[in-house]
């Protein structure tokens, strides 16, 4: 009884998904570009773009239909000679920074880029305190 209910529910839920498959996928959704160098550039970009449907996957990983269309869009533009960063900016203009996994240099992200410098500076300061002035001090005996 319960299994029959579950099966019915699954059928209802899966019907729209199946219906979507009636339309053939976009030309480059599941097909690599013929030029390996271009495909490598497309791939490098696609792994850093977020699928807006399955939001913890990149469009290179996701099997969502919209991810396929986004891959096709990216590959078509790469094949036409467009710069990958230009494509990224095109998508950011439409979906916001959320669409890219590669952080952009913006006023709100400055701590991200400043933190390593600050930490290195702090480490240098600490190390100098430890190793930098053994000759200046004459409290070796007291320690």
């Amino acid at each position, binding site marked *: 009884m319960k299994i029959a209910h579950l099966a019915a529910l699954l059928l209802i839920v899966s*019907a*729209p*998904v199946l*219906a*979507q498959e*009636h*339309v053939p996928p*976009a*030309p480059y959704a599941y097909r690599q570009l013929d030029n390996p160098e271009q495909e490598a550039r497309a791939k490098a970009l696609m792994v850093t773009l977020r699928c*807006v*449907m399955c*939001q913890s996957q990149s469009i290179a990983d996701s099997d969502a*239909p*919209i991810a396929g*269309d*986004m891959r*096709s*869009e990216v590959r078509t533009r790469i094949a036409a000679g467009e710069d990958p960063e230009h494509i990224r900016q095109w*998508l*950011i*203009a*439409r*979906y*916001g920074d*959320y*669409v890219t996994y590669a952080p952009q240099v913006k006023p709100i992200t400055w701590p991200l880029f400043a933190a390593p410098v600050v930490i290195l500076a702090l480490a240098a300061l600490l190390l100098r305190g430890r190793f930098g002035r053994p000759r200046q001090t004459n409290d070796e005996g007291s320690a």
Partner: protein
Amino acid sequence: MSQADPKPRLRLALWLPLILFAALFALFVHGLTNPADTNVASAFVGNPLPQFDLPPAAADRPGLATRAFQTGKPKLLNVFASWCVPCAAEAPQLAALAQAGVEVDGVAIHDQRADLTRFLAANGNPYAAIGRDDQRAVQLAIGSSGVPETYVIDGHGVIRYQHIGDIRPEDVPKLLARVKDAGKGAGS
């Protein structure tokens, strides 16, 4: 008395796990009762519609091109599909909006004519035009991340507002107000 008083720190330490537990519990309850908004809003609101010219998706409706939104009259652009369940749920609300005098144009995503015909026969057809977007070219170009989504476009073809998800009955007055605002803004 003589045992408890000299060690107030120990007593605090004993309470600490419970305090931590209570804090985490409160945090989890808050997280569970207020799920995060996972919608990706379009960052393209305020920009003019990109140039497109989609072929007709239905037999008895024309296709959809950018110039249809440059007539001086604000319109709704509804991104939908026959395979999308919430799209069927919002059909009465779209009909109400069309009834109120707002032109509704559709962009059908990944759809086939036979499926779409069946969908429109079952749920009503409030659309003045329906463009066929098989590869989501228009959907991606306006920053739409799913179906259904409804955009308010002013008379100059500029995107004024995005409604994500199905239009509920309570959303209809809000959308009508947005269309009215877009009409004022376009004002030429």
